[in-house]
């Protein structure tokens, strides 16, 4: 039993990261109906900026974080305006292809600019491990999990109980009617992209220490888990992203602990296929209806 609980606790760290990454994806998906396959690459740029500001320029870590995440928001907004906006009227598949192109582009640029040497980013919270009886969790992991929950709550409050949040939900629900009500769809979508990349950037930077170093492609494997989290939770659902992320983190850790660490990606793939087969809309998503 203790082993089980410990594995669950340890899974919260990665679970939080997957949840944050999935949140980033969800914010973008909600308003533009696009799964941003480039989100991981864009997030990596943010992490690289944190490293540059902190290690090369010498800024304090907190300031580096702040500036980098803000830059990430700007990057997300620019990506939408420059690349995604023109494709709005075309089929969704075109936007998906564009995000895949952007994935290549940004991964490549990151490699060209920063090189492939793994870089280090300090933990947010150092210090002794927190123990409770025979269970232990690192401060950093606890912070990540906590941050995820808090952020999830903040977003929830924003969406459900504020006017701008209402505007976003309106655009997500029915863009044309929202426009008729005077809501600027463009601004909402661009803002969603900004927020989505910013949050993903935070997730990526938090993931660096446990990933063995910051490289241009280190988010690739994390991205798979993030997608799985979105699939499990349901693509348009914030709650789904958080719950899905934590579930994936915990389940993969349980499997690693009880059985083997080796077939994680295969397990995730099987999970994705199973969920899509049994309940394509995920735990909290909504079923799409096709009209003839």
């Amino acid at each position: 039993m203790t082993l089980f609980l410990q594995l669950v606790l340890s899974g919260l760290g990665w679970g939080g990261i997957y949840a944050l990454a999935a949140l980033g994806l969800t914010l973008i998906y909600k308003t533009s109906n696009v799964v941003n396959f480039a989100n991981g690459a864009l997030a990596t740029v943010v992490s690289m900026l944190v490293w540059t500001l902190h290690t090369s320029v010498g800024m304090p870590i907190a300031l580096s974080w702040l500036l980098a995440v803000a830059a990430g928001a700007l990057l997300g907004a620019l990506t939408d305006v420059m690349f995604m906006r023109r494709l709005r009227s075309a089929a969704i598949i075109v936007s998906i292809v564009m995000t895949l192109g952007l994935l290549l582009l940004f991964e490549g640029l990151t490699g060209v600019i920063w090189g492939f040497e793994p870089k280090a980013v300090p933990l947010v919270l150092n210090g002794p491990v927190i123990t409770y009886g025979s269970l232990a969790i690192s401060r950093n992991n606890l912070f990540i999990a906590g941050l995820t929950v808090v952020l999830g709550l903040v977003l929830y409050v924003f969406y459900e109980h504020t006017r701008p949040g209402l505007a976003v939900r309106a655009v997500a629900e029915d863009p044309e009617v929202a426009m008729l009500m005077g809501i600027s769809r463009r601004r909402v979508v661009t803002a969603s992209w900004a927020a989505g990349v910013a949050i993903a950037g935070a997730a990526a930077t938090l993931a660096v220490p446990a990933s063995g170093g910051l490289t241009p492609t280190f988010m690739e494997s994390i991205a798979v888990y993030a997608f799985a989290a979105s699939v499990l939770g349901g693509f348009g659902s914030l709650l789904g992203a958080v719950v899905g992320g934590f579930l994936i983190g915990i389940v993969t850790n349980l499997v690693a602990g009880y059985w083997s660490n080796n077939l994680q990606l295969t397990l995730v793939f099987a999970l994705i296929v199973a969920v899509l087969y049994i309940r394509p809309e995920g735990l909290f998503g909504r079923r799409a209806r096709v009209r003839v």
Partner: protein
Amino acid sequence: MRPGTREVDRLSKSLLRRAADRAGPGSRPASWLAGRRIARLGTSAVVVIAALLFPQFEGGNIPVMFLATTALTYGLVAIALNLLMGFGGQISIGHGGFLAVGAFTTAIVATHYHFPPIVVLLLAGLVTGLVGFLLGLPAGRLRSHYLAVATLGFGVAVPELALNMSLTGGFTGVIMPPQQVGSIQFNTPVPLYYLALALVATGMAAVISLLASPTGRRFRAVRDSEEIAPALGVNVPLVKLTLFSLSAFFTGLAGYVFALNNSIVEYSQFDFSLSLFFFAAVIVGGLASTWGPLVGAIALVIVQQQTTSLGGLSETILGAAVVLVLLVVPGGLVALPRLVLRLAAWVWWMAQRVLRRRTLPPPQDPVPAERAMGASEG
């Protein structure tokens, strides 16, 4: 001629239904501007002859032959992927996984059994085709981004499995034994090149043949309007299964060449970047065109080879190419000649206007103008 938003919209809208569909046999009248047809056949003939004669010049140069065979191998995968994406409308960012299955099947079978090469080749195709069939079962119910995520998962799961199974040699992989038919050693550069060429030709012929048949029309019906297709008697789930199976089969054949070309098959050769490469090759070359996938693969292989010095540069170029294709030239590389001719026609018209100060009728709707100019590949 600067594409405005509306033109971009219009062009992008046809991304999945390229005008080059019309390039299939049986969909054009023979009488129709014979001049243009001759130009296209002529170009094709030149290309084929060049491809056949290539080893005469470079046959001794091992790195070049390796590159050429790699280009052909990836070209075959791109043709298979184009069948699935361009003509079937099913997205896949996991085709590296299929190549892995084909290559590993080849190496394992060749190591443990002494079958004739043709049998090993067919087994590679069939086993991969079966895997494609199995993936197609759940995948057939998925659309757009769900399908993309599922194929992405497939593409990363396969190499991981390969790493963890002793059958596939774990970390070190499987060494590919020689393959010999009579006195022809397929593990030497020149015969292998011709084998790859033959397979590419077979793949292209198969696709062209399919397009001008009921199956080909059914594929594209599912791509264009999946909801309506049943009203024409189309069995949509069966079509999708067929698409995945066929696409996987041809990729499996490519796996055979891959195994011989690299002499060893191991898990790290098949990462996500490889699947992205195939995807980019199809898009950049020209989605749903006959020659696009091959042109795209060759172009991108050359780009990759020339940029190995600077890490990340090849990816940047690939990504930029995909983005450019989507925004500016949706027809891909094969549509460039036509675009250039349109530009030339427009410049010519502008020049006429300026020089003669006479208002000539503007270039017609692009279609007639480019026909008159005898444009090339489609």
